[in-house]
């Protein structure tokens, strides 16, 4: 169940899986300790459920308060203080913040550069939120993995790369019409199942041939020069393509064909089902790491992210991180979009500058390194109007485990940073224009602005953890069954149940 919750959270924000477990564990530990301190015994079932409900309520109410009144102003102040003057660099820093720690040290810089380049090339003055959502939802089709090369060879190339070579290749000039096919041109007999019989009549040889001939002739009439097929075409089609100087690409991923027909405003042909006509800017062959692939230029300037790594395992990691970057950005931009008033939204598009500038000024991002946790901790403990001090204290204490783990290699540095943060905060309360050192405090070595992370992602993390905790604490008993449960789409494996039971016992024993 914990895993399910965590995965759901990761899917939504693309970030925070490790913090999720840390925070959950810290909360459980906190609950255990508080039981020891106050009641000597353990929490009773109803007591636990009550606590869970109260914590969830704190998560709903106090968290929003904290974000609005404390964190957002601080974040916007923080960002305006530091050298993020150019809005473009916000994206760089966000991506850098996400990547660092997920890939090796030397590779983060390269990967960040390529991902930013990819974003900017895809976006090209279009709506920034839509661009991110487009990249996020089609990421698997918009990147091509290549092994055997250093990560530094990663690049962004124009056009949509199909990881197949042309079956028939001819040099074509200028915009060309392409036909998208999902079926074989030949007689389809293998689709009907096992019990097929073929009726052999007079002239059978010529009849099958002539049907195909007719189909192909109609293609020539419609000026098609490229055939893109998701299936293998019969040899006679290949031969026909060669004779008529038509480029043929077989075994294209059908999802990629769908994407192509979507972005190029395909014209669907009425007569044979499932055929689309699109216009391509060009057709090319590209050589990537010892493979020859096809590259299709769309009218809309689609770009493909070519990700390289020396070995497959490393490549998977790079691909996952790159995909995660856009999940994180999507969450951030969606949250920002829903936060601006409806009147503003009616404006046609949100340019890249507007979006990132808006996010920055609106306090949507904070420097990495536990600042969010420190701020929330401080707010929960020190604001007088809190309705449920016990729960606030529980949550506040648990929050600190994230920065504590972040600086676990050196306990002193954690304390230093906390002190530094507190003195900053005092200054902030005293003066109107404080000199905020925090955020730069622990990257002494470099003069660069610190990396950024999304506030909304962090907020979602706290909410998700509290929801998960609620579910966990509300479990009254666990029943083991011998047959698999078929109540819903999620079936719990035995292992999960055992784990749950362990958790239950753990919290019961408090």
């Amino acid at each position, binding site marked *: 169940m914990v895993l399910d919750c965590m995965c759901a959270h990761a899917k939504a924000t693309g970030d925070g899986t490790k913090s999720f477990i840390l925070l959950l564990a810290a909360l459980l530990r906190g609950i255990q300790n508080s039981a020891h301190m106050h009641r000597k015994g353990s929490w009773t079932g109803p007591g636990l459920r009550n606590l869970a409900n109260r914590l969830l309520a704190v998560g709903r109410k106090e968290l929003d308060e904290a974000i609005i009144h404390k964190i957002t102003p601080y974040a916007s102040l923080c960002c305006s203080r530091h050298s993020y003057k150019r809005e473009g660099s916000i994206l760089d820093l966000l991506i850098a913040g996400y990547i660092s720690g997920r890939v*090796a*040290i*030397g*590779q983060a810089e390269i990967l960040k550069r390529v991902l930013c380049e990819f974003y900017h090339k895809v976006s090209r003055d279009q709506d920034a939120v839509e661009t991110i959502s487009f990249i996020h939802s089609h990421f698997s089709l918009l990147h091509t993995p290549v*092994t*055997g*090369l*250093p*990560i*530094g060879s990663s690049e962004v190339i124009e056009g949509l790369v199909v990881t197949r070579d042309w079956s028939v290749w001819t*040099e074509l000039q200028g915009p060309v019409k392409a036909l998208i096919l999902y079926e074989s041109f030949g007689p389809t*007999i*293998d689709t009907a199942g096992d*019990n*097929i*019989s*073929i*009726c*052999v*009549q*007079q002239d*059978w*040889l*010529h009849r*099958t*041939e002539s049907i195909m*001939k007719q189909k192909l002739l109609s293609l020539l009439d419609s000026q098609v020069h490229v055939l893109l097929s998701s299936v293998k075409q*019969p*040899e*006679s*089609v*290949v*031969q026909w393509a*060669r*004779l008529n100087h038509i480029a043929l690409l077989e075994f294209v991923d059908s999802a990629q064909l769908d994407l192509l027909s979507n972005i190029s405003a395909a014209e669907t042909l009425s007569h044979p089902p499932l055929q689309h006509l699109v216009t391509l800017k060009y057709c090319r062959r590209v050589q990537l*790491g*010892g493979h020859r692939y096809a590259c299709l230029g769309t009218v809309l300037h689609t770009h493909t992210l070519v990700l390289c790594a*020396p*070995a*497959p*395992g*490393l490549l998977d990691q790079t691909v996952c991180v790159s995909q995660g970057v856009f999940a994180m950005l999507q969450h951030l931009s969606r949250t920002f979009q829903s936060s601006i008033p409806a009147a503003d939204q009616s404006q046609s598009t949100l340019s890249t500058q507007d979006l990132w500038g808006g996010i920055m000024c609106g306090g949507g991002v904070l420097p990495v390194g536990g600042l969010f946790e420190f701020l929330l901790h401080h707010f929960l403990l020190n604001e007088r109007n809190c309705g449920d001090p016990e729960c606030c204290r529980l949550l506040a204490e648990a929050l600190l485990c994230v920065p504590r783990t972040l600086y676990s290699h050196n306990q002193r540095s954690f304390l230093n940073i906390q002190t530094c943060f507190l003195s900053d905060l005092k200054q902030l309360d005293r003066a109107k224009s404080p000199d905020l050192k925090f955020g730069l405090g622990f990257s002494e*070595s*470099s003069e660069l602005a610190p990396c950024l992370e999304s506030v909304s992602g962090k907020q979602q993390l706290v909410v998700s953890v509290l929801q998960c905790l609620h579910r966990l604490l509300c479990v009254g008993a666990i029943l083991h069954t011998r047959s698999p449960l078929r109540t819903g789409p999620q079936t719990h494996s*035995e*292992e999960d149940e055992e784990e749950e039971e362990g958790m239950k016992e753990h919290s019961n024993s408090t």
Partner: protein
Amino acid sequence: MSRICKRKPAVCTDEPLSDSNICQKIALLRNILSTSYGPTGRLKQIHNNVGGHVLTTSTSTALLKRVDMSEPLLKLISTSVQHHTACYSDCGLFMGIFMLRLIENTQKYNVRTVAAAKSYKRLVEECNMYLKGDSCGCKVSVDFSSCDSLVALARSMITSKPACMLNSRETQHISSLIAQAFLYSIPCNSPGVACFGRTVTIGIEGQPVSDSSVFPGLLVDVPEMLQLADLKRLGSGPFKVVVFSASLSGDMSEVGDVILEIHRGVDPEFDLLQQLLKLGEQVVKDKVSLFACQKVVHPVLQHYFREHGVVVIERLGLALMEPFIQISGAQAVASPCSPVPAEAYGLVRGLCFQSCGSRELLHLLPPKDAAISTLVLCHRNETMLEELKMTCQRAEHVLRLTLREPYALPGGGCTETLLATHITHMNQSTATITAAALGVSHSEFLMAVKAFCSSLHAVALSLEHDGQDCLIDLTYAHRWVSDIYPRTSARQTCGCGLVEDRSDLEKTPLNSACHTFSPVFLENTDNQPRILDSFSAKLNALNVAVEMANFVLDVKYIIKDIN
């Protein structure tokens, strides 16, 4: 009822590189690779425990493909080398030795992982800059106006594969054949975007290597019942050609495994044969002299063609279809049911018999612009032939890489010593600034430079297996081997052959400490390096090796599922 097995918990290893067992295995792999390196590298025999094929090789590709790694880290290292060689065909052993040495040296000098990763990244960038820059004294331009450097590149590749078992004369012969095959594969005077041709390799076992040769055009097995007289009767070329990709066997196998419901009075087999004969008639009427088919041709049709003096090649196979189409300009006909379109016919310039060792082959002479050639390789036994075939294919690929980057690097360990000297010298004065910029301490950075350069030296040292001392000269920074029995006839040269020995050339053993210096670029020399390595392959190997080493050093925890 199915039995439910309790899942075993995953095995976790903390700090894998401090585990002596894993370190031992890394050292073993490094030892295997470095003992295989170079012209005098020791061969490795790979057996499995149930008998069967025994492989003798010293190449990284063949070795790593067949050796199963038990440790996840070693598996990763092995696959990364294999993926490099899949792209570049060369420098696999270099990459492996350098990477493993770098890992071991980092451990040995006790450099922090973070500091090591940052420093190595920086150093490999310096290497890239140096090698790609114009002022690089170590790079050799490939001169396409003569074939010397191409042959030298090919020869270096063959000499570094001792399992080919060639003597120096045979090596020279094979390397010139490779250069020749490469030149044949470049299309001349073709308009528009040029596309590489292809070299078809045929291996013949049990013949001396000197019988190997390269032919422009395509060599195929002589069709059954084709006599010399038949060719004579054809007269002189060019001959009209047709090629079928469809089966002309006349049975209905292509329909698949289905029930046939046949109307009364219809005989499908007979119909098909009639269709084939009709096709035959057309082909004969169109004055075709060579009829080729990827698959089987019906015996009756074959007989018909023979009667009309048409040469039939059947069962050409998928691999030869593409070269056949390229050489003849024909287009594969996919169906016997419709007449052959006029555009589908092609031409060959002539047909003749070619006897290669024990085998008689039919030679299809290409028209002038077809970039297809056939490399016939002969060797004494199967294992050596296999290694030779693979080496030749890789060498040709390496030659192709020179078209993208027309450079080569001096071989024989000289590039490694030069690079190491350059890197040491470069970072001598600027170490403080660089270390500060990287955010590492000065001493850490110096240690990292030392680990990096001694790993490069280790590669150069791996070339020597006979107990001779490896030296480095203190002027040009090339690698030398101390000659125990000085040859009187020729003057001694360095590893790559660029620098000639002089009495005033100061040398020192490679692994000993010496003062740093900037290598002098040898100008105005008539000497050409005898041994050249691929520029693109070595550059990629260097980069990938550093990246992998950094990654392996960074692994703090291994979780292995053993279910």
